[in-house]
């Protein structure tokens, strides 16, 4: 569907509508004017007829005007005893020698009686002005139309621009609006009632949404919090139980299974709490974090795991990557990405890391691209690993979303590339 601006949209209809209105009006006006013109001409012709007939009574010489000359009438004698003395007026064309051309004329034809003789009297008057009139009228109308359209375009432009200014302001503010950003929607109180209503409605809607959103966030956080203590009690009781010397191996294994399940629950809960805290902006303090240093520390943490899984890690250091952010979150960010690469790498696989100013990239081998719509979804799992919480990459994305200066990207280039790039704020 082709979309137009409000201005063009209204203009298109206005131009067509004005054309139609002017057309109809022109036709009507033309008819009225022509009617009036003919009425005038006819009155003139009738007046001439009257004068010629009465003149003929006193000066019979006139009766001999057999041709249209300078007199604009001719009189033809009619044989016969009786004729109807009727009058008709019609349009015709006449060759006039003075103009050496045919010209449109209006002719009055009548029969009159002078003495005993009947005569036909034909009077003409040139109607060439009528065509001129029509032409002038059309030109005038076209000029009017153009003038109207131009002024409407201009008015439309200025009035709409002025009238819709608050609307675009509101639109602008809405574009920059983020749910949960706690930034208030500042009213500009436009003088136009509709826009004022719009602002009011928007403000009310946002407030409602904010309340629901924060309640929901609060709920997740509270729920996760409240779960901690019962989880602790259950897990700790199992630990105490496991120390019982009288347990058989089978019983111990059963308890361990319950313990593992509980452990998984603890981890999911903890991850949810972390996401919830990130989104509630509870990691306020920021400092300049050098990812190179952080990565070196974390690689050391993972060294024995990497060695155990026989994964090869290559590090290409092309400069320092520094970001102003919270230290704990930076650690979580890098370690989750690193962990993701290590976990999804089989024995002997290669993990490539490269750092450059403005870019931090971790790549692990893989055969086919991941579904970008799903990888950052909460609880989405690649399938193979039932022990993963499915929250690791969600946390990574939550962290990147929290900061305007970094951006998380995934592509598939003969492997899964997760890249954090510096994002220049616009």
């Amino acid at each position, binding site marked *: 569907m082709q979309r137009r601006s409000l201005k063009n949209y209204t203009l298109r209809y206005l131009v067509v509508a004005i054309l139609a209105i002017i057309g109809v009006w022109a036709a009507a006006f033309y008819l009225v004017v022509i009617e009036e013109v003919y009425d005038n001409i006819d009155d003139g012709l009738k007046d001439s007829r009257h004068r010629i007939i009465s003149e003929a009574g006193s000066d019979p010489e006139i009766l001999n005007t057999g041709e249209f000359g300078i007199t604009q009438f001719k009189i033809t004698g009619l044989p016969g005893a009786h004729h109807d003395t009727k009058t008709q007026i019609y349009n015709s064309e006449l060759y006039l020698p003075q103009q050496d051309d045919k010209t449109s004329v209006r002719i009055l034809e009548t029969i009159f009686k002078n003495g005993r003789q009947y005569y036909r009297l034909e009077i003409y008057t040139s109607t060439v002005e009528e065509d001129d009139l029509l032409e002038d009228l059309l030109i005038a109308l076209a000029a009017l139309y153009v003038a109207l359209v131009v002024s409407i375009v201009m008015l439309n432009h200025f009035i709409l621009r002025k009238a819709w200014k608050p609307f675009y302001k509101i639109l602008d503010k809405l574009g920059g609006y983020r749910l949960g950003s706690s930034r208030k929607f500042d009213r500009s109180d436009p003088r136009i009632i509709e826009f004022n209503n719009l602002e009011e409605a928007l403000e009310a809607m946002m407030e409602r949404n904010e309340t629901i959103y924060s309640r929901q966030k609060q709920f997740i956080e509270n729920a996760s*919090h409240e779960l*901690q*203590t019962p*989880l*602790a*009690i259950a*897990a*700790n*009781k199992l*630990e*105490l139980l*496991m*120390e019982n010397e009288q347990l058989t*191996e089978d019983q*111990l*294994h059963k*308890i*361990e299974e319950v*313990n*593992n399940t509980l*452990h998984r629950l*603890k*981890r999911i809960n*903890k991850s949810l*709490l972390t996401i919830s*805290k990130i989104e509630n902006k*509870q*990691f306020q*303090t920021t400092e300049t974090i050098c990812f190179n240093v952080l990565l070196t520390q974390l690689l050391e*943490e*993972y060294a*024995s*795991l990497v060695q*155990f*899984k026989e994964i090869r890690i290559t590090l290409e250091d092309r400069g320092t990557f520094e970001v102003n952010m919270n230290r*704990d979150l930076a650690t979580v960010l890098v*370690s989750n990405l690193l*962990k993701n690469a290590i*976990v999804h790498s089989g024995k002997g696989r290669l993990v490539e890391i490269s750092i450059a100013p403005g870019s931090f990239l971790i790549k692990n081998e893989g055969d086919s691209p991941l579904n970008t719509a799903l990888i950052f979804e909460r609880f989405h799992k690649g399938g193979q*690993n*039932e*022990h*993963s*919480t499915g929250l*690791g990459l969600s946390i990574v994305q939550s962290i990147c979303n929290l900061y305007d200066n970094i951006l998380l990207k995934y592509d598939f280039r003969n492997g899964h590339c997760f890249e954090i790039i510096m994002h220049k704020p616009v």
Partner: protein
Amino acid sequence: MKVLVIEDESELQGVIRDALSKEGYLTETAGNFDQALDKIISYEYDCILLDIMLPGGSGLELLSEIKKSNKKQAVIIISAKDSVEDKVSGLDMGADDYLTKPFHLAELNARVKSAIRRQNQHGDHKLHWRNIILDPDNRTVFINQEEISLNRKEFDLLYYFITNPERLINKTSIAEYVWGDYMEQASSLDFVYSQIKNLRKKLTAAGADGDIQSVYGVGYKIS
């Protein structure tokens, strides 16, 4: 050794008390702010486990009360709140450690032990178990007075076992204590096994009087 457990959740209070009693601590409990304040003022403990959110008041208030009393007692905050601010303010106010719920009992043991050890300023900070001596300050290990070299993770592992001697420690607890949150998958348990195997080799080679044994594949125990 006397430990005071300030925790309003009676079930958790019970588990902690049982676990610490097993370690030979004399354990007392307090379930609310007033009870806790009463005990803090009246008695002296080697270590106080302090929950932040208590009926009747904040654990942080109790903490400043404890610090005012000038008694030499270690304070470990146990809280469901894992927020950085809480941790920082707790530690700033003089708490010795901060443990987030839920925790493993073995970890609690280790923390209590090291908090008490640090509190004892003039005494011997080294941990002794049979012929193994662990020096947490310098991160060195001696077996029969001979120093053996362990990497960082192996040291942490041994420390965890020495602070929980003769007790079954399950694998997830070990993985969490030594490798923290980094460990999150099934293979981590094989990984723990391989790390313990390495540590065992070193201990046996140095002639340690004791060995880390696998208990039916669910955990490990030093004995």
